[in-house]
C-alpha cells in the first residue's frame, strides 16, 4: 500500500477528484493548506505598506491505494491538476505499513 500526497492548486480540486473517481479511488482526505515552492508568494500594497505574502493557498489531497493503483493515480492527478504554469504543485508517494477499517476491523488492502 502506498500513501499518495498531492499538493495542488485549489481551483483544480474538482477536476482532480473526478479523475480519481473514474479510476476507482474510493477515498480521499482533503486539507486546505498554505505553502510556497518555486512560485514564491505575491506582494500586497496598502498605501505605503508593502507586504510580501510568502504562503499561498493550496489544497493537499491524501489517499492510500494498493501498489498497483499508484501509477494510474499519479497519472490522473498530473493530467487533471496541470496548467503548465509555475505553482501547479507536487505529488509525494510513501509506503504504508498497515490500514484498519474501524467499523469492521478489516486490515491491509481490504480496509481501503
Amino acid at each position, binding site marked *: 500500500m502506498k500513501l499518495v500526497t498531492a499538493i495542488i492548486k485549489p481551483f483544480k480540486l474538482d477536476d482532480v477528484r473526478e479523475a480519481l473517481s473514474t479510476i476507482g479511488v474510493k477515498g480521499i482526505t482533503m486539507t486546505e493548506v498554505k505553502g510556497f515552492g518555486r512560485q514564491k508568494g505575491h506582494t500586497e500594497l496598502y498605501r505605503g505598506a508593502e*507586504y510580501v505574502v510568502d504562503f499561498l493557498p493550496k489544497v493537499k489531497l491524501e489517499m492510500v491505494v494498493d501498489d498497483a493503483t499508484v501509477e494510474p493515480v499519479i497519472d490522473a492527478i498530473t493530467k487533471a491538476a496541470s496548467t503548465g504554469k509555475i505553482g501547479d504543485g507536487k505529488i509525494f508517494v510513501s509506503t504504508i505499513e498497515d490500514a484498519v477499517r474501524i467499523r469492521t476491523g478489516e486490515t491491509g488492502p481490504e480496509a481501503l
Partner: protein
Amino acid sequence: MSNFKIKPSFGLGILAIIGLLMSTGASAEDAKPVLDAGNTSWMLTSTALVLLMTIPGVALFYGGMVRRKNLLSVAAATFATTAMISVIWAVVGYSLAFKGSGAYVGDFSALFLKGMGYDSIQGTIPESVFMTFQMTFAIITPALIIGAVVERMKFSALLIFLGLWSVLVYSPIAHMVWGGGWLAGDGIQDFAGGTVVHINAGIAGLVAALVLGKRKGYGTEAMPPVNLVYTMAGAALLWVGWFGFNAGSELAADGTAGMAMAVTQIATAVAAMAWMLIEWIMRGKPTLLGMASGAVAGLVAITPASGFVGPTGAFVIGIAAGIIPFLASVYLKRMLGYDDSLDAFGVHAVGGIVGALLTGIFSAAAFGGAGLNAAANGSILAQFMIQLKGVGFTVIYDAVVTFLILMALKFTIGIRVTEEEEAEGLDINQHGERV
C-alpha cells in the same frame, strides 16, 4: 460658515437695531432676524448628513484598514467619541467656540446652552439647528484623529485625550476662524473647515502617533487590513455626507451652497482618479484603498475652498489632492518612519494644507471664484499669505497643546496598552468582544 457671510449680516442686524432705536424708537422686535424655512430645512438635512460621516462613515473607513483583532476597537472609539463630544459640545464646547468676542476663544456665557430657546435664531435658521450642525463638526474632528492611534492606544486614555482636545484645541480654533476670533478678522477663507477640522485633526494625529510610538511589529510584520470593502463603504458615506458638510456650511439654501456642492463632487472625483493613476504608475497597481483614499483627500482639500472657488479651482485642487497626500502617505511616512497608522496626517493635514493654501489662489474672481476676502485688497499673494498664516498658527497651536495633553496623560494614567494586550488585539482585552 464663510464668516464674511454670517458676520456682516449679524453686524448689519445690530446696526439696524441701533439705528431703529435711535431714530424711531421702534421696538427691537421689528429688526429681529427672520427665520427662513427653506434654509432651515436644508440645514436640518445637512446636520443629519454630517453626522452620517462619522457614524458609520469614519468608523467603517478606518475600521476596514485595521487588523481583524482591532476592528471593534476602532468602531467603539468612533461611536463613543460621537456620544461624548455631543455632551461636551452642549455643556461647554459651543459656548467656547461661538459665544463672546475674544480673539482666541469664546466665553462661558452659553454653558449648558443657556439662552438657546425655541425662538432663538442664528442668521436665518434656528440657533438649535446651528448649534447641532456645528456639533457634528465638533464630533468628526476628534474622530478623525483616531486613525493615527489605532491598534495600540488605551480606550480610556483615548477618550480623555479626545475630550480635552475638543475643549482646548477644537473650540478655540473654531472660534478664531468661524466664531469671530482673530483669524476671521484677519480675512482667512475657510468655508467648511480646512484648518478647523482637517489640519487640526491631522496634526493632532501626527503628534499622537509620535508620542504613542509605533505599533509592535510595524514595518517588519504584515498587517493586512481586515476588509477594504468596509473602507470603501466608509469613504462613500463620507463622500455623500460631505455635501452636508460643505454645501451646508453656507448655512443657507442658495447659489453658494449649490456651487459648494458642485465643486465638492468635481474635486473629489478628480482626486480619486489622480490617486489611482499615480499609484498605478508608481506602484504598479490601482488599489481600491488608493481610490478611496484619493476621494477622501479630495474631499478634505476642497473643504476650505468650496463656496469660494469655481470649477477651475476644483479641478486643480482635485489633482493636487490626489497627488500630494499620496506622496505624503506613501513616501514621506516611510522616509520619516512614524506610524500614523491610517494616515490621519498624510490625508487630512496634508490634504487640508493643500486645500487651504490653494483656496487663497482660486477664490480669486480671475479663476472663476467668488472673490478674495476684502482684507486681501484684491491681491492673490496677500490672500495666500493670510491663508499661510492661518495654517501656520493652527499647526503650531494644535501641535503644542496636543503634545501637552498627551504627556500629562502618559505620566498619569498611561496611554498605551501593554505589549501582550497589543498582540492579543484591542477588541478582546479593551472591550471583551470579537468579530
